[in-house]
């Protein structure tokens, strides 16, 4: 039974089509358990993620965001994740600089064969976000209670 009062974080996961999405799929078909807090958005490549997507996810009420792509060197488009890594690094550091908890935004490299790693990553992300509680910083103020 689900406890009604227990707060469960909402986590938006941007997964690259070629690796992490397939990794999630593998976790599913292998019946590996992981917390049901994530909402997956499939993207063609981690390099296709505009930092604004991530900010927008926070604004629309995500308590945490996970971005996952292919391991360096394994990108289906050769170097998309290398470009992405620079952007993600800047975004993550900038958010921390602005006073947003580092657990809110997490990144991982998960390949298509790493169903086990995928479930571990999700567990770690959910645990991290649960520790810091619901998101207030960056969330649009007037969305739900105005």
């Amino acid at each position, binding site marked *: 039974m689900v406890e009604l009062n227990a707060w469960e974080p909402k986590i938006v996961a941007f997964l690259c089509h070629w690796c992490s999405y397939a990794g999630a799929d593998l976790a599913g078909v292998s019946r590996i358990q992981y917390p049901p807090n994530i909402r997956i958005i499939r993207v063609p490549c981690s390099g296709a993620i505009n*930092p*604004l997507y991530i*900010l*927008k996810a926070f*604004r629309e009420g995500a308590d945490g965001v996970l971005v996952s792509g292919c391991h*360096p*060197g394994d990108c289906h488009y050769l*170097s998309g994740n*290398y*470009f992405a*890594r*620079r*952007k*993600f*690094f*800047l*975004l*993550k*550091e*900038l*958010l*921390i*600089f*602005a*006073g*947003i*908890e580092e657990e809110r935004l*997490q*990144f*991982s*490299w998960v390949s298509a064969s790493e169903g086990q790693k995928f479930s571990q*990553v999700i567990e*770690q992300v959910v645990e991290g976000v649960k520790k810091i509680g619901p998101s207030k*910083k*960056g*969330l*649009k*103020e*007037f969305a739900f209670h105005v």
Partner: protein
Amino acid sequence: MYERALTELASKILGEVEGIIGYAPGSLPFHMRPFLCQREEDIACLSFNHFARPNLARYLLTLEMRKKRVAIVVKGCDARTVIVLLKEGQVKRENLYLIGAPCHGMVSVSKLEERFGVLSPPDFVWEADTFTWRGERFAIRDFLEDSCERCAYPNPPWYDALLGEELPKPPVLPGGRDYLGRIKALPLEKRWEFFAQEMEKCIRCYACRNSCPLCYCTECFVDQTRPSWLSQAATRNENLFFHLGRSLHMAGRCTECGACERACPLGIPIGLLPLYVEELIREHFAFEAGMNLDTPAPLLTYRENDPNEFIR
């Protein structure tokens, strides 16, 4: 400052170029304004001093200027902005004539007011590094704008003609270069409190965006409706979204000229966020915007040993 060199140069090149984008005295004391000199009789209006605050590179991007060959007066930071624009293909080198102005730093009117109360122009006599107020001598460096306190490039890295002589690298002012350090030293929650408080003040007039020569998107992401990134309501978090988004758009492009910060009518230190991004880029990607035309922009390239520890 530089008036003679400026008029001589202007009368020499005015035939070659269709206009000179420079500074002229503004309508209020301690204000200079952008000025487009197109005729012989306008040349006398051109001047330069410690109040030539706006970054003129912005005017290269107006529709009429793009078609013309123009000369432009640039300080160190402005010249770097022009180089970024050249690199991004926004202006053509053959359409440009850069008049470099070695810059002693811009003086902040609010800092003067803080010290001297109501300002009266005749009380002041200005020189390059110092000024006197009612006979008493003061150093310019104690009254610089925040953006100029942290300046590392008083001389334009690139120019066609230079007014005066190149200046030595400015000394590190106490607290000047450490502008970001003060914030970085705070614990996470204090940093959030600081930014939250500043963002609360923002009215989203976009003076920062519009004064920035590198914010030239035909449609800014805040104005987009499909998708709509954020609403028009100037609430704290929406404002933060705008400033974070803008800082990321500026990543590897911002030349730290401080035009955004000086433009802000509410005195919000909005330069902090883009500056921090630039610091990260300097430190981790070994790149500084607007120094030359050859090094590729940091987000258009990569190295295999880029920071990776933050990724699981």
